[in-house]
């Protein structure tokens, strides 16, 4: 229908003329990331007038600590969404990493070894889900829903439902979660390293380009010689591995392992990725966008807290932001298309 009218305004491709480089500014303005940055900066300005406490170092630090570790989960989720999958188990697998590492530590194992074992377990859980999705042929949604419940059950089983106090963790271990290099918390450093590395890889490497192909059209990818099942298996596994890493950092930060940690976290993470431009149909998304999404959600939460808005309102507001972001994007895309 509309495709029928397209021919008229197209230009003939000549060797000389590529319109790609010229309107860089225009392209930037179109980008979702630019819109998010504007909104975040706007909120910043409003909040610095609204609350004297907002622009203090302590608040900035607390806020960035809040989104930094979740940022790792968002990276894994975004890549998985791009490949066409989804993972509902991130909250409980993160908690499980914490609980398993804490439990092993309390049984007398070196905390670094215990952490490595917990991360390995999360990787295995991811591989297990990947197996059910790619080999058995079940849907990501169902498989990860089952794992979400199982992992949470395992957390409660290992702890008897009570937080494990890890007061004897050595200071160099706690340093990952609580320490700073100069004024910058280690957590932020880890976060930035992951963001920069994954953003770069996602945009530039052949390995991750295959993730886009697979998510955009799995059959066309297979018909281009791409092993799509392997790609989906790996993105599923990566997401769970990053949950493991996040769980360990949280453990070091809290000095305890909480079996009920991260209830409902999966929805925040998926919301952040989608606000940042990831499509639930696969094939699109960016790390930068997703990180801006998580920053926006975290900024809104802490702003509401500073403004003494009831916590009960917070979920309502965050849900509305998600709906608004997706709706606006839908219309922008329509106009562009």
């Amino acid at each position, binding site marked *: *229908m*509309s*495709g*029928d*009218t*397209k*021919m*008229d*305004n*197209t*230009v*003939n*491709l*000549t*060797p000389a003329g*590529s*319109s*790609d480089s010229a309107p860089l500014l225009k392209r930037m303005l179109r980008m979702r990331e630019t819109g998010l940055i504007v909104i975040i900066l706007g909120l910043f300005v409003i909040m610095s007038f609204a609350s004297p406490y907002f622009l203090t170092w302590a608040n900035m630090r607390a806020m960035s600590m809040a989104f930094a570790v979740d940022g790792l989960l968002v990276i894994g989720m975004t890549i998985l969404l791009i490949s066409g999958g989804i993972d509902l188990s991130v909250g409980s697998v993160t908690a499980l990493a914490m609980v398993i590492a804490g439990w092993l530590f309390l049984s007398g194992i070196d905390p670094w070894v215990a952490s490595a074992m917990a991360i390995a377990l999360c990787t295995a859980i991811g591989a297990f889900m990947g197996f059910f999705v790619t080999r058995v042929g079940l849907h990501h949604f169902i498989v990860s829903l089952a794992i979400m419940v199982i992992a949470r059950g395992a957390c409660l089983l290992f702890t008897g439902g009570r937080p494990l106090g890890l007061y004897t963790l050595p200071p160099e271990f706690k340093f990952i979660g609580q320490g700073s290099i100069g004024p910058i918390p280690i957590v932020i450093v880890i976060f930035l390293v992951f963001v920069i590395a994954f953003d770069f890889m996602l945009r*530039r*490497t*052949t*390995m991750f*380009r*295959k993730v*886009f*192909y697979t998510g*955009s*059209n799995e*059959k*066309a*990818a*297979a*018909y*281009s*010689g*791409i*092993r799509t099942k392997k790609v989906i298996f790996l993105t599923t596994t990566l997401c769970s591995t990053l949950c493991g890493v996040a769980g360990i950092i949280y453990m070091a930060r809290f000095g305890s392992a909480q079996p009920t940690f991260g209830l409902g976290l999966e929805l925040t993470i998926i919301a952040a990725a989608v606000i940042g431009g990831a499509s639930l149909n696969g*094939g*699109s998304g960016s790390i930068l966008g997703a990180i801006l999404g998580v920053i926006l959600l975290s900024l809104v939460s802490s702003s509401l807290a500073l403004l003494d808005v009831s916590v009960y309102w917070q979920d309502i507001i965050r849900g509305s932001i998600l709906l608004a972001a997706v709706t606006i994007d839908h219309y922008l895309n329509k106009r562009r*298309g």
Partner: protein
Amino acid sequence: MQDDVILRISNLSKSFGPVKALRGIDFELRKGEIHAVAGENGAGKSTLMNVIDGILQPDSGKIVLDGDPVKISSPTMAQQLGIGFVHQEIALCPDVSVAENIFMAKTNVSRSWLMDYRKLERDAVDVFRQLSDIDPSILVKHLSISNQQLVEIAKALTLECRILILDEPTAALTEAEAQTLFGIMRKLADQGISIIYISHRMVEIFNNCDRVSVFRDGQHIVTQNVAEIQPSDVVNAMVGRVIDNLYPQKQEMPSDEVILDVRNLTETKRFRDVSFTLNKGEILGVAGLIGAGRSEIVKGICQLEGDVTGEVWLNGEKLNLRNYQDSIAKGVVYLSEDRKGDGVFLDLPIAANVSALNLEQVANGIGLIQSGTEEAQAKALGHKLNLKCGSLSDPVSSLSGGNQQKVALAKMLSVNPRLIFLDEPTRGVDVGAKSEIHRILRELATEGVGIVVISSELPELIGVCDRVLVVREGRISGQVTGDEMTEENIMHLASVMDAQDSVA
């Protein structure tokens, strides 16, 4: 023919932003006629049909139905006015029975609380009596594409329409099914129903329609009785220039050098003992009814699907392919018949589509994609194929069907293939792009690339290929070459039941 006009459109225009899709169109449809509408993609014929069906609203102009000026504001209203539209894309509910699909619109406006399934099926049998013997109780997803098309047509017929619009209904049908459809169309026309028939195929237009209207660039060019106009005139009116030869020149000097040698290729369920060769410079066609195993054989050679035994030799080397990755590495590629389904990545940029088969070519030593190299590759191949596009970073979905197909072809050419299997390479492609694709295939063959074309369109096979293999029920039932290449001979080999092996 009766001369009473049922639908008259005068001076109708429609723009999308700066694009003028329709410019002052005049069109009239007589009662009980089959009126062909021809034009390249982008000519405005789909826009016009969407206006008639109420999907789009015109900017200006008049629509007069049966003498009364009307404003068709929605497809529902079009239905009430007796206008039925069978879209090219099948829009049925796959998990619901044939009968329920047919009466979907009626159920929608029904005032009864409960579904009367038995009545539904009885009514469906009535509707189908004149069409085909499809069992109305089976689920639509179990039907072949061609039968689904018939269900779409049946659906439109239940609305007791006076005007029936068919948008390229034969694209997915076999020759025999298409003939049945034409029979039905004529019967409907004799009952006084007016049919607008959109098609690219001259043979269909000239054998089955009463009049033909040609559109180009949003304008109405000509309307004529088919008896008073030549196919070549219609084609020239469509493209706006004289195409003296629809198909490129054939191979002049046959070569003895064998590129591809397939021996006793067998796949337990779908084909047996398939043996053939392809010589250098030759374009080999593969004909056969849908379901005969044409696509399955070439997909088997590429290791895209199926568990195949037998030998495949390429340029004197025996291929031991384990999967399609191996096949690409050896330079054997497959252009899919379902462009949107598995041929291109519609929402990814053109450049990223072209590079998909071998990313290493556009990456550096440590696996980083060099976007400059990637764009240069797409630009070079786009230029070679005369691809019309805005920017190479636009998604493929922004292109017309013919240009999308060129992207799919560029994707194949990006790996410098030695052998290309093309499955329906010009399906849904307009006349201009079609003859360009044919020209490119001939050039590639002359350069020494092996070209094997599968097509359901016999004139295309006869026009483009030097030799045509015919597949029937998973076996090669024969081959034709030179003057023997006629539609009759091919159809005979494709459908005759008493098999006599004339394999070369």
